[in-house]
């Protein structure tokens, strides 16, 4: 106990890079602005103008308040208590002043309210001809499903096209956050929510989850790639082809990463939310009903399609079903992959 405490203290003081190499960390591209990240969508600039407007008014009013405070403190500072210095005046009200400082902010507030409202309506009213991509939040992974049915853990979009993201969650509330696009929307279980954007800058930008969702909330990261020209379509076609051509075990490994299996099932034998995949094929597991089961092709397939049916003892029934998300070929790939993890 003491030893581990000392150890962690040493680690802390040395500020050692104990970063988990497995953890996916997107890069934040250098921004042209001090306060905000890059402006990479049509709405970003609009939102930022309002941000800057409020900021300058805030800075000026805060400086005025500080200045008045400091000036009065210095100018009217009493010498000491003994001299019993009285206030120079006992003025205690001025209706003109009260009305001025109630009404003046009022106009400013109305202006930012109306401006913010107009932008908000635009932010959440997707144009009709948008490309629709489905985003699914689950502990602790985003998956994106493209119009052609291809599923990936990263978001790829074309530049200068309207993209609408339909968001859902399979477990708890998450929130899809694309800072460079100034876009954010909660993923709520049991309903669809949506956001849209039109990317104006090619590049790779981070994606976060911003609604606290448990242990690895801070690892629920992804990234969005904005393609120029036909890059998006080409990428999509290439991806699908590439996957079809992979040897089964490799395809399975892809699926393992892409569908977020890694969030719960480790490959190194350590225990996580779900049983480890190390040596899983052929292992005899005890189910929560007490029954003994040998893990074979059928068991794996069933566990993917109906994960709540046979739960291994000692693990929570947390896994969502992947029915309809995985083709037979991909499931075969996963089975082949699991055979290789020994």
């Amino acid at each position, binding site marked *: 106990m003491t030893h581990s405490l000392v150890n962690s*203290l040493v680690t802390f003081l040395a500020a*050692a*890079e*104990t*970063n*988990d190499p497995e953890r996916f*960390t997107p890069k*934040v591209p250098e921004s042209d602005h*001090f*306060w*905000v990240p890059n402006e990479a969508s049509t709405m970003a600039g609009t*939102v930022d103008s*309002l941000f800057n407007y*409020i900021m300058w008014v*805030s800075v000026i*009013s*805060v400086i005025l*308040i500080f200045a008045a*405070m400091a000036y*009065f*403190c210095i100018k*009217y*500072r009493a010498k000491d208590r*003994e001299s019993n210095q*009285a*206030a120079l*005046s006992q*003025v*205690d*009200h*001025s209706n003109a002043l009260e009305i001025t*400082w109630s009404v003046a*902010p009022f106009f400013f*507030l109305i202006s*930012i*309210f109306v*401006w*913010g*409202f107009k932008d*908000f*309506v635009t*932010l*959440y009213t997707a144009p009709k001809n948008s490309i629709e991509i489905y985003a699914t939040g689950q502990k602790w992974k985003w998956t994106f499903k493209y119009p052609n049915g291809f599923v990936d853990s990263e978001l790829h979009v074309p530049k200068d096209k309207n993209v609408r993201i339909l968001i859902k969650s399979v477990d708890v*509330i998450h929130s899809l956050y694309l800072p460079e696009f*100034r876009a*954010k929307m*909660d993923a*709520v*279980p*049991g309903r669809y929510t949506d956001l849209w954007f039109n990317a104006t800058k090619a590049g790779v930008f981070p994606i*976060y989850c*911003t*609604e*606290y969702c*448990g*242990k690895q909330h*801070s*690892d629920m990261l992804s990234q969005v790639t904005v393609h120029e020209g036909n890059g998006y379509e080409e990428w999509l076609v290439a991806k699908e082809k590439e996957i079809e051509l992979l040897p089964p075990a490799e395809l399975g490994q892809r699926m393992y990463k892409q569908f977020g299996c890694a969030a719960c099932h480790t490959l190194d034998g350590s225990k996580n939310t779900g049983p480890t995949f190390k040596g899983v094929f052929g292992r005899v597991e005890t189910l929560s009903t007490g029954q003994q089961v040998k893990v074979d092709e059928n068991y794996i397939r069933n566990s993917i399609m109906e994960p709540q049916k046979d739960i291994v003892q000692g693990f*929570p029934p*947390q896994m969502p079903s992947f029915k309809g998300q995985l083709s037979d070929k991909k499931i075969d790939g996963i089975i082949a992959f699991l055979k290789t993890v020994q």
Partner: protein
Amino acid sequence: MAAPSATVDDNFLTHEKGILSWLCTLDHKRIGLMYLICVLSAFLLGGSAAMLIRAELWTPGPTLIDHQTYNQAFTLHGAVMVFLVIIPGIPAALGNVVLPLMLGAKDVAFPRLNLASWYLWVIGALCLITSLITNCADTGWTFYTPYSTTTTTSVIPALFGAFILGFSSIFTGLNFLTTLHKLRPAGMTWFRMPLFLWAIYATGIMQILATPVLGITLLMLIVERAVGIGIFDPALGGDPVLFQHFFWFYSHPAVYIMIVPAFGVVSEIFPVFSRKRIFGYKFIALSSVAIAVLGFLVWGHHMFTSGQSIVAGTVFSGITFLIAIPTAIKAFNWIATMYKGAVHLDTPMLYALAFLWVFSIGGVTGMFLSVMSTDVHLHDTYFVVAHFHYVMMGGAITALMGGIHYWWPKMTGRMYPEKLGRIGAVIVLFGLNLTFLPQFVMGSRGMPRRYYNYLEEFQPMHQLSSLGAFTMGLGFLLVAYYLLRSLKTGPKAPDNPWGGNTLEWQTTSPPAYYNFHTPPVITEGPYEYADWTYDAKVGGYVRISKQAKS
């Protein structure tokens, strides 16, 4: 120290002796002090959790603790600070001690209920500690479903604790409201009441009308978690967003429950230390009530990105801006109070100025969040964290510190060391700004809140923030040190060290068991200083005209 009061030895601290005489006391001053001790102990606990969080965030990856412990630490920090420290801090601790004194009453309306509220606080705190030691809840203090109904940590004790603490708060509010209505002595008209009492009045309204909704919400959540009734759980057809509506229907007024009493404390300190009548008394008094009423209509501004309709969002955003106006009115009036005054920069005044400073920053950054389009970008980032810490920590806690120093001589009968007091105030203010200013930048650059790991780009600002937090921690330790020490070694306090004209300064320090040896007669407003003059022999203020007559 030939104060006239020195002849009267019996005071509420010495009237009865022994621990039981405290635990069974019905005296509002003793109950207030017991609250103060408990609240400050809880502050130590919540503050330790904060230090742990800031230490962990020193590096982007794991630093000191693991994921789960980090999540539990920020949940504990939030729940303790909100439910155990800030909500009862000013009203229940300081309010209990000074409210009947300021009003000229002998006690609060229901002394037994008052003691019961304190015991409820203790039970609630024990529930939270039970959760802490069994398997601390990791839901965040907001207990959002369905996370809170599915996580494996012990959420129910935490929920039950918050539920009980809610009742403690309701009963305190009820007690104060009734006291202010029914125990005002002759002469104490509504507009002769000190502004602290107006603030407590507005707070009482919110405590009574908002907290029961939290109670029923937490109760439903407990039942949901225990047996699964499907009201909030989407797996059973429930609506998780409904929980957010219910929760914020309480928790937004709760923000004002936390900050309005702070307005009250600051409204007392500014005139007394400027030796000048408060500017715009009626505007300050009524703006508290306006905030209390409007505070009920804005809860949806926490949910602009939750999928609620644009119409709802618009209404909530619009009303939120209306609240900005009474709040701004207060700030302007406090500044105007100093104009042509005779300003004394003692520790309480330093805290009041610090309050004005940080609260202005907290207030203007609130505008970014109440504007719907900018909130989309800033929601659930460190910008929000910085904003509400500027308001809660910078506002409510700074005012609590100011109030503790202001009434310390009255409560304990001892003076604290002035010089250390000023140093402490400056360190705390410096640490506070160093902690939270970088968080604004991080947040608007897109750093989400409640993150155990973060991207390396944010490390320098996280480290600045952590340094600030440690500075602030040291500042508070210094304050704790000299306050505790002054209990033993502090010089005896005069009856009226600051020259206040509210009634608590017109009895002995510490006050007698029944508060006033002679019932006070109220013939003027609370901020008239012409009759008070500093007497170096007493070390405090004495009344000239009245003394001359006797």
